[in-house]
């Protein structure tokens, strides 16, 4: 074939890239088949005997590794079914049970005979009844075993049908996969050209590692014993393919080490931990004094007015309704404790999170290190860090705030960093060109431009802090969380629902007011 439009010439090396130079072996065949595939918009029937017969091995030979893996697994699945149908002792478990019961029955009947001989008729009758019951159970087990053995045939047929189907799929799919590989290769991706012996060897190693063990595992009733028998104890008796041959020994040692480590830290840095606790307590106490000690009408009035001024009449009405709910349910004080807890958590998150976010936004390297830590803080289940928090900080509200901090801080850090990075370079450059100091740049340009992102971060942080309320109550933080924890313990459905609604309303009020502030500030009310 002469050069066609489908040929590509590498601009750097001058190599001609066409089907012929790609397929090398059997080039005529592939040229014709690819033409068929490329000439049709829909599905073109293109059958590849080599791929159908050799399956995954064809894939390895042609370097079509995607094909190799897909059909390796499909063929293996079909073969497992065939193996189970042929040699799988499907009724083995039930048969064993039957034998066990039969043995039991025989023992009992022997005993009954003894009793009868001894003249204990009542005892013998009782024994006989148990033996009869066991006989029924044995019959059931035997039936199950027979049924399982009978199903072997259908499994075998299913397996064979599946295998045939996989072969057909291989034959039809191969040229499509290979054509896609050709297109990748033509656009300069490193793909194998022609047949390769080395690839076949790699593929065979893969097959040898995967197929035999898996087939044995699924077809033989006791694979470990079978392997031990076949290999003549070459790997010893304890070697197992069913379970990883390790007990709990490593785990136990490391866990004990961990315990010792935490204890050491708790003692060594006790002062620092106490200091942190004290700091959090100050913030908490301040907020609690404001929210709880202030007479409730004053707090309610200020909150509603604030909502009105900052976020408009609709939010004010909603706020009034929500506060009324809290008051009439008698949850006012608990709610205020909760809000103080969240408020302290969110405040500290923002206080620590925004400077960190600014730093991470400016320094790529710092962010690279921080990213996994932030991921860890967000994905690690809360219970895992509750344990060390108790070890270091004890129980009560400050540790609760600390747990909130760990969970709720990542969004504000991330979004601040994102916002900082989103400030256009041109804008920063312009500010510098007018003689800005770093500080002026930060406060006049970067932070205002990053503000939308930062506000989203703060919002998310507040909402995540709220979701920690119940978990924080596990380590003794009072409030609505404790109420819900209690209803969980006593299955008090109604109490749980009312408490949950109270948390929801607290969250919504805070969220709506905060969003209102932001909307007003950005000028799109």
């Amino acid at each position: 074939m002469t050069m066609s439009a489908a040929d590509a010439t590498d601009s750097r090396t001058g190599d001609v890239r066409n089907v012929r130079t790609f397929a090398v072996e059997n080039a005529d065949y592939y040229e014709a088949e690819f033409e068929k595939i490329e000439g049709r918009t829909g599905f073109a029937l293109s059958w590849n005997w080599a791929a159908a017969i050799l399956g995954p091995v064809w894939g390895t030979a042609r370097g079509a590794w995607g094909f190799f893996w897909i059909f390796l697994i499909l063929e293996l699945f079909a073969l497992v079914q065939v193996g189970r149908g042929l040699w799988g002792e499907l009724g083995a478990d039930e048969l064993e049970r039957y034998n066990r019961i039969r043995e039991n029955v025989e023992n009992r009947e022997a005993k009954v005979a003894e009793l009868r001989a001894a003249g204990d008729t009542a005892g013998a009758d009782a024994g006989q009844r148990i033996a009869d019951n066991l006989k029924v159970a044995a019959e059931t087990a035997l039936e199950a075993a027979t049924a399982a053995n009978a199903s072997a045939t259908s499994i075998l047929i299913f397996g064979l049908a599946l295998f045939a189907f996989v072969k057909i799929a291989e034959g039809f799919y191969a040229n499509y996969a290979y054509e896609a590989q050709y297109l990748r290769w033509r656009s300069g991706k490193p793909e194998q050209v022609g047949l390769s012996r080395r690839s076949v060897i790699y593929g065979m190693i893969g097959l040898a590692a995967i197929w035999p063990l898996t087939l044995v595992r699924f077809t033989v009733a006791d694979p470990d014993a079978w392997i031990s028998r076949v290999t003549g104890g070459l790997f010893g008796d304890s070697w197992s393919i069913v379970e990883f041959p390790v007990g709990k020994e490593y785990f136990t040692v490391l866990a004990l080490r961990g315990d010792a480590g935490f204890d050491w830290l708790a003692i060594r840095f006790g002062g620092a931990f106490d200091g942190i606790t004290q700091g959090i307590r100050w913030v908490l106490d301040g907020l609690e004094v404001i929210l709880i000690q202030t007479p409730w009408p004053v707090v309610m009035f200020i909150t509603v007015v604030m909502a009105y001024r900052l976020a408009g009449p609709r939010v004010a009405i909603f706020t009034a309704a929500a506060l009324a709910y809290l008051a009439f349910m008698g949850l006012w004080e608990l709610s205020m404790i909760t809000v103080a807890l969240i408020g302290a958590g969110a405040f500290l998150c923002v206080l620590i999170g925004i400077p960190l976010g600014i730093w991470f936004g400016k320094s790529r390297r710092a962010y690279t290190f921080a990213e996994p830590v932030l991921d860890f803080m967000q994905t690690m289940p809360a219970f895992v860090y509750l344990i060390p928090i108790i070890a270091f900080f004890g129980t009560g509200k400050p540790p609760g705030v600390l747990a909130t901090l760990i969970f709720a801080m990542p969004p504000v850090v991330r979004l601040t960093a994102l916002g900082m990075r989103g400030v256009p370079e041109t804008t920063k450059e312009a500010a510098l060109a007018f003689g800005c100091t770093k500080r002026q740049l930060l406060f006049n340009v970067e932070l205002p431009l990053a503000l939308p992102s930062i506000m989203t971060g703060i919002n998310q942080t507040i909402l995540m802090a709220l979701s920690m309320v119940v978990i924080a109550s596990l380590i003794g933080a009072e409030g609505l969380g404790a109420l819900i924890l209690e209803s969980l313990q006593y299955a008090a459905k109604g109490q749980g629902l009312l408490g949950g609604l109270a948390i929801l309303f607290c969250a919504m009020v805070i969220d709506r007011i905060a969003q209102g502030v932001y909307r007003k500030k950005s000028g799109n009310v």
Partner: protein
Amino acid sequence: MARADTHLIRQSDMSDSVIELKNVWKIFGSDANAAMDAVLSRNLSKADVLREFSCVVGIADVSFSVEKGEIFCVMGLSGSGKSTMVRHLNRLIEPTAGAITVLGQDILSLNDAELRNVRANRIGMVFQHMALLPHRTVRDNVAFPLQVRGEPKSRRWEVSQRCLDRVNLTGYEDRFPRELSGGMQQRVGLARALASDPDVLLMDEPFSALDPLIRRQLQDQFMALSAELGKTTVFITHDLDEAIRIGNRIAIMNDGRIVQIGTPEEIVTRPTDDYVRDFVEGISKLKLVFAHSIMVPINEYVPARPVNFDESPRAHLGSDLDHLIDIAITTDHVIVITDDAGGDVGIVDRATLLRGIQGGKA
């Protein structure tokens, strides 16, 4: 006409230069200094530097000076290093080698505070993408350089108002940039650059992102302003027409090097290489070529048949082709060119004129 004359005067008075670059190089990359040494000692090409050091030569051996009150255009295609070059003048980019003097100060020797001071007081800059602060009103955007300088609000607003009046944006003070069209935003950018009353204006492709009609309007407005304020300006553009319209002198950059510096007329009539020639090919010469560059000196003129110069119309040395054509169509005589004193110095006949229109060559 006036332009050519003022330029002649300026060239003779070099002590007045406001900006001076001497052999400035900028090489980007982690190994820039080693690459620089190699370039100087072994005379490597741009491609060599990229291959050997994985460094990119941004600008190469750039030297020029700009005189007080001059509009100096730097023209080049994208990637030619013109934007990189202009950022050296206020040291937004540090050069790898060379000397830069602006307003008599060695810019490279300034410490951070001094540099900020120069940027805030003496050099204004206008950017291609405006780079306005979206969260501030037009007024506060214009006042930004003054705020940076620590001026009180009342003074900031007063100056800002004056600058906005100057660019015809009176009445838009309290709008936000996003509410303005592209052309208006760039006028805000210009007002901002003028707010600190700098001695030097750096304009980095200020009108490139605008549509042609608005661009022309802004060019006119800028030239009027410039004539009034007389600020020394370095004007970056990729549009030769714009450079010719605006510039007193033009520097043409290619691949980080300046290939030619000259008045618009010099660039158009005497391009130094094919690169520049390609550029000027499509440019109309009528307004750029002047009598003095095409005329035949009067004592060398060999008439085809005897002529009497007394009947010939007269034109000044600085008349452009457009004007000479106007004269030529009214008469059959050759045109006599006179100097400032009114004395006859040269002759332009029909053949000379046609050659001039064609190629700007005598």
